[in-house]
């Protein structure tokens, strides 16, 4: 089972988790990323490259499936206007083995951070706004999987 969704709508982490649990694998891992409200953030906008996004995510999914034995893989990534506390991204995996489920989940979110065409712009309560800068830490986290 592979499910990849890019869209403005919120998603139901619970239902996604339940679908992964129902695959019979015995091991399900998930990661949810949400908008933090720190530093006076009032909202965030997620832009993307629509024609490219879904196949970029499918490529990342295929890499995970080639590397770990997975029964299920879910990637949900939201775009558009989001507020503090809103979900941004969900990654879930199901496998017969816990290490496979957990490592694949970590791999997927590290790759999404650096290899998928999304850009975040933050707006603050004082009226300022700025594009989020890419972080060297994220590149290092992704490079860890190259070895």
């Amino acid at each position, binding site marked *: 089972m592979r499910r990849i969704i890019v869209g403005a709508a919120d998603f139901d982490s619970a239902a996604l988790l339940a679908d992964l649990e129902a695959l019979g694998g015995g091991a399900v891992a998930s990661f949810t*990323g949400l908008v933090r409200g720190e530093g006076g953030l009032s909202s965030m906008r*997620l*832009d*993307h*490259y629509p*024609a*490219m996004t879904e*196949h*970029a995510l499918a490529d990342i999914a295929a890499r995970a499936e080639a590397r770990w034995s997975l029964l299920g893989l879910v990637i949900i*990534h939201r775009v558009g206007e989001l507020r503090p506390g809103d979900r*941004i*991204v969900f990654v879930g995996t199901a496998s017969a083995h816990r290490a496979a489920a957990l490592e694949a989940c970590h791999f997927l*979110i590290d790759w*999404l*951070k*650096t*290899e*998928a*065409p*999304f*850009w*975040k*712009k933050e707006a603050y309560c004082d009226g300022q706004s700025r*594009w*989020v*800068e*890419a972080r060297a830490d*994220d590149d290092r986290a992704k490079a860890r999987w190259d070895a």
Partner: protein
Amino acid sequence: MAVQLLYFAWVREAVGRDGESVDLPETIATVADLVGWLAARGDGYAQAFADPARLRAAVDQSFVQLDASVTGAREIALFPPVTGG
């Protein structure tokens, strides 16, 4: 050759449009050449494309290095490093 250019994030904001169709001069062999050519247009373009180190690119919807060839490309996107997830 006519190529569709796409701009995202602050590149789009600096240029003031999300894309355009251009005829590339034959002297432009790589994405880096294209970036230099766009920067020379001045104004918002100069601002967006002055520092190639801040830019990333995709040719026909695949990420490439700036030294990648643009020969035969139909769609070239220019943007800052991605910040999704």
